[in-house]
């Protein structure tokens, strides 16, 4: 049956996908890295996740005969996109699938910093009726800068605006006419205006260490940082220094360098830091179901020879 397109996917997706597959395709599933690496070269179409089981993105590199590679995640920085370009492969990702869940997590981070909430949770564990923490302030009337204003960044911005926060988003190429979205060349000069800097930009060569000692120094004293994107965007040593000096007010970091963060890393115990361990995207909502829906729509396009949706732009890295 050489004419059937072979689809290689993780075994746990089989029950959702198999009953709904069209004619003309054949499903092969893997459990674990060994099987994934063995099956990958057979794939015309492969679905691999970046972090599942550790480093599943490695299997995509082994999918040398694939024409289309899919992932349900948003961040693609660990994938070997250089090989995909070389092989002329199409790469689709899960942009937008988890925006609500991640945005909620980011808002929780901002609220945690604004109301000094971590000591309150600790007081609860001690069964102690805490007094108000010094430095607690309201969110309404404050200003937030969101670095990366794609699907997730916008979801965060919309939420913060409902709290009465003035939001400025940063895009690589800003939309004309919207003064609340600025370009990559203009945000540094305005850093001192913001009470919160939220990072929602992709991890690319261009965004690596976009926040370092100079940027932290330019921020308003007491500014809070929330990172739900990638650890690589922050110069972590500079962040620890800016927190320890008392210049920055605190940070909630779902992403770090490296991951997992070693237990003896100084970031864990820097003042007013909460490291949340890359869980921002985990929701109860059926993001896997939606990823399957999206895959099936794209499969239909693929079999008809039509362009796919949510294709990664290799030149941008997202």
């Amino acid at each position, binding site marked *: 049956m050489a004419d059937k397109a072979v689809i290689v996917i993780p075994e746990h997706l089989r029950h959702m996908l198999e009953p709904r597959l069209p004619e003309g395709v054949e499903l092969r599933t893997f459990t674990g890295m060994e099987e994934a690496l063995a099956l990958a070269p057979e794939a015309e179409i492969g679905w691999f996740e970046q972090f599942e089981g550790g480093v599943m993105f490695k299997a995509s590199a082994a999918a040398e005969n694939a024409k289309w590679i899919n992932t349900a995640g948003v961040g693609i920085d660990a994938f070997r996109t250089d090989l995909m370009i070389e092989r002329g492969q199409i790469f689709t990702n899960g942009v937008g699938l988890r925006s*609500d*869940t991640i*945005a*909620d*997590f980011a*808002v*929780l981070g901002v*609220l*945690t910093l*604004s*109301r000094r*909430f*971590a000591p*309150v*949770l*600790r*007081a*609860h*564990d001690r*069964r*102690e*009726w*805490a*007094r*108000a923490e*010094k430095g*607690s*302030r*309201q*969110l*309404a*009337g404050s200003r937030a800068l969101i670095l990366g204003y794609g699907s997730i960044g916008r979801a965060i911005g*919309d*939420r913060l*605006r*409902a*709290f*009465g926060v003035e939001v400025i988003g940063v895009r690589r190429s800003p939309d004309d006419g919207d003064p609340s979205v600025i370009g990559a060349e203009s945000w540094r000069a305005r850093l001192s205006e913001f009470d919160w800097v939220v990072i929602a930009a992709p991890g690319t060569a261009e965004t690596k260490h976009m926040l370092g000692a100079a940027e932290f120094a330019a921020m308003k004293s007491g500014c809070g940082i929330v990172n739900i994107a990638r650890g690589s965007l922050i110069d972590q040593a500079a962040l620890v220094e800016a927190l320890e000096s008392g210049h920055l007010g605190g940070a909630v970091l779902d992403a770090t360098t490296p*991951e*997992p*963060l070693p*237990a*003896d*890393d100084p970031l*864990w*115990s820097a003042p007013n*830091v*909460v*490291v*949340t*361990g*890359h*869980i921002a995207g*985990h*929701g*109860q*909502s059926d993001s896997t179901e939606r990823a399957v829906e999206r895959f099936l729509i794209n499969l239909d396009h693929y079999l008809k020879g039509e362009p796919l949706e949510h294709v990664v732009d290799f030149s941008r890295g997202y």
Partner: protein
Amino acid sequence: MTRTVAVLPGVGPGFADAGLLRSHIEPRLPDWIDARWWTSVEELHALAPEAEIGWFDLHYKPPQIEAVRLASGLKWLNSLFAGLDFLDLEEMARRGIQLTHGSGLTAAQVSEYVLLGMLAFAKDYSAVLRAQDRHDWLQAAPGIRDIAGSKVLLLGFGEIGRLVARQLTAMGAEVVPVRRKAGEGALAASEWRARLGEFDWVVLTVPGTAETERMIGAAELAAMKRGAVLVNFARGNVIDQDALADAVEQGRIAGAVLDVAEPEPLPPGHRLWSVPGILITMHLGGRPTPASMKRAADRFLVNCDRYRRGEPLQPTFDARLGY
């Protein structure tokens, strides 16, 4: 000119930033007011008998109640707090004391705390923070509840409730408020009990009145959806706490976020502390912030002018409505 004595909070034990209040008020105080600033409970009680205008707010209420008793010449009592049901309101009415309260001053920050409490519950932030404090990278998310797509019943649709509704709606929740009359997506006061089973969250921001006391008891908890969460930013006595602890322990509802409790402070041995699934936030939602202090000072100064001209003060506390 005989000046009117006002006994006002200076830097003191009432709340962390009481000094801000004084710095906002003092430079703008009219000449006819002779301000005496208290900075301790002892000073408050010593100065209270001189007060025609009083501002006696303390987080711990008994000494505040005592100050009102001692202030025999009091004609106007001002407060930062929205709910003044802890005062002997009948006695104050008999003494002819006008009462202005802090309604709306802290609505924004309380609404933020409601969302903070809900999100912290949804993501089990207590467990996240414990992992952080152990320097432990979590293998799985301890809480995965989403706000988007959930249904929220909002009991209490004053200023706080409206802000909560706006924020929840922006997060993709479906919000159904309870109002005196049904319509425009709202349920009437007579309707919500029958519909309790539809909601993932039940959020209380009602005022503390005879009508709202124990409005959530064993029957209401039993009618809630399994997996629902009760969120109380109203008054501790709005909930039957024992029935709540039972319901959470037995898994009939998922849990609760309690900014208020009975009594406050909740003693360390109290049962509520140790029920897994109950998050207590220690009445911090409405604690004054720099922004609310500024608003309180502005409102007080406007009322001073009204008081001088013999005009009605605003907002005055209605004991019957509870706000």
